[in-house]
Structures are given as C-alpha cells and as structure tokens.
C-alpha cells in the first residue's frame, strides 16, 4: 500500500495528533508552567519559581495529610483488589457449569461502580440508620458510626473500590484460560501437588497480566474522586481527603490554580516514579513466554 505517498497514513492519524497537541501536550506543559506561578482565576499570573512546591513540601499540613491518606488508600486497595480478583478468577477457572453467569454477576459492579448512583447507595448503606447498621443491630451488634471516625470512613471508600474487582478478574480469567493444560498434567505426573503447580506454573505465566493490572489499577486508584467526594466529602478530619479532592477544591473552589497545578504535578511525579519502579522491577519478576531466562 505505498501508491498513495508516504503521508497518506499521516492524514488518518491527524485528528489524534491535533487532539494530542491541543488537549494533552500543551495543557501538560501549561500545568507545569502554572505550577511555578501564583495564578488565580480573574487575576494575572506572576512567576514565583519554586514557592508553591516549597509550601507544599514544607508547610502545607493539608497536603501532608492528604498525601498520606492517598498513599494508604492506594496501598490498601490495589493489592487487595488484585489478590481478590485473582482468587475468584482461580475458582472460576474450571469446568464449572454457570461460569458465564458468575462472570457476569461479578462484572456488574465494575460497570456501575464509578457512577454517582452507586456512591449515593454507599452513602446510604453506611449511614447511621443505613443498611449495614440495620444488619448489625439485627444480629445483636452495635451500630457503627462509619463516617464519624477516620478508620471506618476510609474503609467505606476502600470497600467501594474493592467491590469493583470484576474487570481485573475478567482479565485474569482470560489469561488463566489461555494456559496450556498439558503443563498441569505433566506436573501432576511428576507428583506435584496443586499448590505447587499454582506457584510453579500458574503464577509465573500470569505475571504479565498481573503487571498490566497492577499499573492500571494503581494509576486509577491515585485518581479516585467520585467515591470520597460523594460518600464522605473527604472527612472526617480529612481522613478520606484524597489528593484529587484537594486539587479539585484548590483549583475550582478557591481558584488557586497555580498552587493546584503544583499539587497535581507532585501527584503526577509520584505516579510516574511508582510506574517506572514497576517497569524497572518487572525485569525481575515478569515472565514472558519464549524468554531465555527460564
């Protein structure tokens, strides 16, 4: 297909290139520039160098609180969600009748979980007079003030994310089903117990998918907004005040866009560093078929 000249393909990707420039590349650099200014909406911007960053990293207590909560949230949700998704995928991966039914049922929360309606449902489920407390009191426990103390409030928004393990599970399941069954038969003939086959065959072959899910889930968890915004409003005592909430309020409530951009860049750098660490470390734990090392 070379008769149309070398630029033909370029015309097809041109919309993407324009979008990339206008809506991604320029805003990306723009926010870096803004982060070095004291830009506020309706006012001019003046260049203040690293002042925003200095404030964020030294004197901003809200940032420190928000940062710690965000890290905690990501560190809890991502591994738990992946482990649970893998566990259920493992159970589903056999000659079960009704596998399609279960797969669908488990996937439904991933379809709806990001919606405001589900966030509203969560808020009412964990309210003082909500579903969970009604269940607790009916079996003789005391009602819990879920949104009244930091630990339980964070638990509610964590649970909302764990609830959506279906998409990761479906990816794990597809990978499990593509593993050659003869590997297990060979291992069984050699006398390997099931758990031994899991660690020696299944897990290594799944590492590329685990890696993929890990990166995607991490990048998304760092950007969680709807849950805390609707369910807990960041409270109590900022215990669910994730960084995206802080950035949103700084930029669109206080209109302090220079400072908000600086926080966004700190968050971006954190995500980047963790992604790069994951990529770098993947050489040591991700197994690709046809790889010479094993």
């Amino acid at each position, binding site marked *: *297909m070379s008769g*149309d000249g*070398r630029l*033909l393909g*370029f015309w*097809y*990707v041109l*919309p*993407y290139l324009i*979008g*990339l420039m*206008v*809506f991604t590349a*320029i*805003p*990306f650099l*723009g*926010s870096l520039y*803004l982060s070095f200014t004291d830009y506020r909406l309706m006012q001019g911007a003046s260049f203040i160098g690293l002042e925003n960053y200095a404030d964020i990293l030294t004197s901003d207590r809200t940032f420190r609180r928000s940062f710690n909560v965000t890290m905690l949230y990501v560190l809890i949700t991502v591994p738990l969600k992946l482990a649970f998704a893998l566990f*259920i995928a493992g*159970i589903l991966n*056999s000659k*079960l009748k009704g596998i399609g039914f*279960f*797969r669908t*049922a*488990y996937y*439904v929360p991933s*379809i*709806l*979980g990001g*919606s*405001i309606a589900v966030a*509203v449902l969560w*808020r009412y489920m964990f309210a003082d*007079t909500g*579903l969970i407390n*009604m*269940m607790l009191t009916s079996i003789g426990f005391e009602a819990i003030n879920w949104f009244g103390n930091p630990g339980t409030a964070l638990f509610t928004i964590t649970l909302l994310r764990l*609830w959506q393990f*279906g*998409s990761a599970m*479906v*990816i794990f399941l*597809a990978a499990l089903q593509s593993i050659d069954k003869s590997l297990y038969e060979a291992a069984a003939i050699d006398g390997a117990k099931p758990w031994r086959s899991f660690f020696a065959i299944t897990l290594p072959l799944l590492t590329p*998918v685990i890696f*993929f899910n890990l990166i*995607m889930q991490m990048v*998304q968890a760092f*950007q969680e907004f*709807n849950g805390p915004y*609707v369910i807990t409003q960041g409270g109590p005592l900022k215990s669910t005040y994730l960084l995206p909430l802080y950035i949103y309020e700084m*930029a*669109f409530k206080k209109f302090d*866009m220079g400072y908000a*951009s600086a926080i*966004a860049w700190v*968050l*971006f750098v954190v*995500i980047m560093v963790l992604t790069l660490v994951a990529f770098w470390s993947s050489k040591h734990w991700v197994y690709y078929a046809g790889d010479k090392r094993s």
Partner: protein
Amino acid sequence: MSDSNIHSDKAIEDAEKFLAVQKRRETVTLAIRYTILTVVGLIMLYPLIWLIGASFKTNTEIFAGAGFMPVNPTIDGYAEGWQTSTPYTFGRFFWNTFLIIAPKTIFTVISCTLVAYGFARFEFPGKKILFVTVIGTLLLPNVVTRIPQYLLFRDLGWLDTYLPLWVPSALAGDAFFVFMLLQFLRAIPRDMEEAARVDGANSFQTLIYVVVPMLVPAMISVALFQFMWTMNDFLGPLIYVSSVEKFPVSLALKLSIDTAESFEWNRILAMSVLTLLPSLVVFFVSQKYFVEGISAGGVKG
C-alpha cells in the same frame, strides 16, 4: 499367564479405587467452589438488590429493616423523585445526558477508527514516536492536564456547554480506544484489503467497504464502553456544566442529595435505580462485546 492376570486384575482394582477417590475429591472441591462463588456473589449483589427493593418502599419502611422486599410496594419514590426540587424533572436530566453521550460516542467511534486504521496499515514519518504517545496518554493521569484544559475551554467560551465533553473525543482523545481498535486490526488479515486496492479502491474506500465491516464488533465494544464511562462521568460535567438546566443525571443526583430531598431516601434511591438502568440494560443486552473488548485490550475500571 495366570500370574500376570492376577496382577492386572489387582491393577485395575487399584486404578478404580484411585479414580473413585479422585472423583470424590473433585466433587468436594466443586462444592467448595460453588459455595464460595455463591456467597461472594450474594454479598456483592445484595446492595444492588436492596437498592431496587428500597426504591419501592415508603420512607419509613426503608429504616425499618434490612430486608429487600417491600411490604407495601409503592411507586411514590419514583413519582416524587422524578419531579426533583428544581424546576426541571428527571426527564430533562436524562435528555441532557443523552445529548452528551450520543455525539460523544459517535465522534469517538469515527475518530478512533480512522486513527487506528492509520496506525495499523500505513508507514509514515514519526509513526513510532506518535504511537509511543498513545501508550503515554494511556498512562498519563488526567489530573495533570485538567486545569489548563479548563482555562483553554474558558478562553474559547465553551464553559457551560457540552463542547468540552465532545470535542476531545472527536479528536480521538481517548487513547484507550485507539489502542483497543489497533489490537483488533492487527488480528485481521490484510488479504482482502490488498485485493480491494488491486481492484482500484483507494485507501478510504478500502476502510469503509472492507475494514469497517470486519471491525464492527470492535467498534460496538468501543461505543459501549464510551457509553458506560460517559454515563458514569461526574467530574467532567461538574467542572464544565454549571447551569442546572444543562445538568446530566450524575450532577442532578448529586444535587438531590445536597438539598432538602436528602431526607427522602426513597426518592433518591428511586432516581439512583433509574440512572443505573440504562447501563445495566445495555450491559445485559451486549455482554459478548464487553468480554471481547476486555480480552482485546484490558480495561480500566
């Protein structure tokens, strides 16, 4: 001879015993698997089941117990919730949602198909670098571009319109879909396209008459995912849409829990059910496309 017969009889007996043990073990693990799957499934789906049940209860009954079956089913929650505390009904908000979703979905499918075709079937200068940016944008957190985007749309005079929600999609802004279509295109053999080109079709005719018919399932997957995500999108409208008359359902629902209505749980739960309904229906009608889409590219969520 007889000696070896005795041996083989014993061997068969052993084998049968072994098989019986194995079979029993399989039955037990199967029972365990089903039990776990059912229990986990029930726990996961109960909130949604309760939501649907509670939306048909009276307000007092909602606080009376954790069961999901309404004693005296009523549609008051729906009737009153539909009216909202604003001058508009939920009908208006659903229409607004449709006005956001329909163009956005159509623009996404068209632009992403063109771009994926360009990447998959042509060589051009800078292609490699440009493709790296597709992966880069996939991983780039939106949070870092959001503020300048807002300022850009403000300067264009697009605030409080749906343009900020449409236009980036029309320019293949959702790199994920480009990536997904590329995966599909790579799996489609090129023979037919080459035959069409030999017969004198130009590259665009080839795309429309040869590639698109084969790519339809993938394009449906893209449309479905974009539909779901836009249905769930909250932050976009929250930042760009400020007048109530233009609110999509996500903003309207948030508004209703912030106002006096928040004491009327049945109304809000009823409207929550309605806003979840389109996604649920679309999902159940078109499951197979979802599974294909996820297996092709992996999916966020």
